[in-house]
């Protein structure tokens, strides 16, 4: 047996090489993020939690048809305006069984309004609840009021002065002009 062979058997050089790799990381910055103290911001396309806008929704039920596991429940009734005698469809029920949702985003893709009336890109990932049947079943009211639900990116929410009649969700012109002058009487 040659001396080099003998020495390489005796001294575990290969193991020390591995240790050198780990030792190199000893003083480097940590890669992990301490979650409750520091929260990562999801990207713009992140499919997190539902948002829904009943003003934009045209009640076509394409989202319910596109859902692969059929967790979107829709119901509507026809209301007749007593003054104009015009018929209008009104959504009475828009429920999403979020606890079964697999966040594939097909409902958002199927939505024909622009921007979509239902979206998953609300930049939240904290959907944990104590009671899943209660906490993860969203009806129309909860889809609006749930703390995690935010407006579709780049679109005003109704609270911020969105015109309900404008499907694009832009600020109404008259109201924008009114807020600009801010109390001063118009000439």
């Amino acid at each position: 047996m040659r001396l080099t062979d003998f020495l390489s058997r005796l001294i575990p050089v290969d193991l020390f090489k591995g240790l050198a790799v780990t030792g190199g990381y000893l003083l480097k910055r940590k890669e992990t993020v301490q979650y409750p103290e520091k929260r990562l911001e999801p990207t713009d396309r992140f499919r997190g939690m539902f948002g829904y806008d009943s003003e934009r929704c045209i009640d076509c039920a394409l989202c319910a048809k596109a859902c692969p596991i059929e967790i979107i429940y829709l119901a509507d009734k026809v209301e007749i305006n007593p003054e104009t005698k015009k018929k209008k469809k009104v959504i009475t029920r828009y429920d999403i069984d979020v606890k079964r949702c697999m966040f594939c985003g097909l409902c958002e893709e199927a939505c024909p309004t622009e921007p979509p009336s239902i979206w998953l890109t609300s930049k939240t990932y904290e959907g944990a609840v104590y009671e899943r049947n209660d906490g993860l079943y969203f009806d129309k009211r909860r889809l609006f009021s749930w703390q995690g639900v935010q407006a579709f990116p780049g679109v005003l929410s109704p609270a911020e002065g969105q015109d309900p009649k404008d499907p694009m969700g832009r600020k109404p012109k008259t109201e924008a002009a009114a807020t600009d002058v801010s109390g001063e009487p118009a000439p």
Partner: protein
Amino acid sequence: MTDQRLPSLFDVEEMELSFGPQHPATHGVLRVQLRLDGEKIVDAKPIIGYLHRGTEKLFETMPFPQCIPHTDRMDYVAAATNNQGFCVAMEKLLGITIPPRAAYIRMMLAELQRLASHLVWLATHAIDIGAITPFFYTFRERDAILDLFEEYCGARLTLNTMKIGGVPFDLPAGWVERCSALVDAFPAHIDEYEELLTNNRIWKKRTIGIGVVAPEDAIDWGLTGPPLRGSGVRWDIRKVFPYDRYDEIDFEIPIGVNGDTYDRYLVRMVEMRQSVRILRQCLDRLPAGPVIAKIPKVLRARDGMVYGSVEAPKGELGYFIVTTDKATEPYRCRVRPPSFVNLQLLPDMVRGHLVADLVAVIGTLDIVLGEIDR
């Protein structure tokens, strides 16, 4: 007077041992019924079906585009290639040609997914054998890849990132630069893993000569992917039946010599380097144009059947789809999962080895039980 009930020293009985389904080293819910002679394995019988969800039957009940989120759930560490397999098969059936930009985006996603899947394999395989350190390093890089996925399609694991006829989105601004930075940094990371393992004497002792598969056996049993290439058979769907635009890309297929666990490890390491090479070429040549072909809103198939397959990180992933005239959903969809076929050889590979080697062999086959049971 001696006790007659005690077995004598040289008359040892064979023992039955159930390995799994809740064993951390079985990579899911695989159960292996072992017959042991001491610690030597006399026979092993894999028992599967604990994760059966009836995905193939589910496909028969829903329109073609809605099947794609369900394919994510089969091989859940490599969802993009699952999507790709289904889309490639459907495009073959419907006669759709996808735009070049869509094909290149698909290839990039598939190669990133191959890297991510191989990183998970390396981490779990090493941790099974006793090397914990690679786990931390590989998952750091995997997270960077998943960040790219999140930026592109909005999900990190179950991606739903491909559509029949192309891809759903164009690349966001800055994605190419970030992917490029990751690709440039990646070979150094692979060097790091190799520094930790390739010449490590413990790693070598645990893997060399374990689970040897002869090339003839590998072909007879229908192995695909790294287990086949580790035995020295040059077979890769990307080369032999190119899909998307793999015929325009220059890359090599690594093969092993001995067909043991160590060779399969080396093959996968070189495969990662080749994936980086493919990614680099895709990023450099990324063509402009639309990302989805013009397809009707409701896809209706004609009478027919098709088999389309892609090279998933674990081997050949194929979809055999039968459709009837003007149907919107498959009449029958059979999935050929690579893990299921590769698992067949487990009894032959572990016979005569010790129980600890069974863990190494399960790790080297790189099985995912979601895919096996479907």
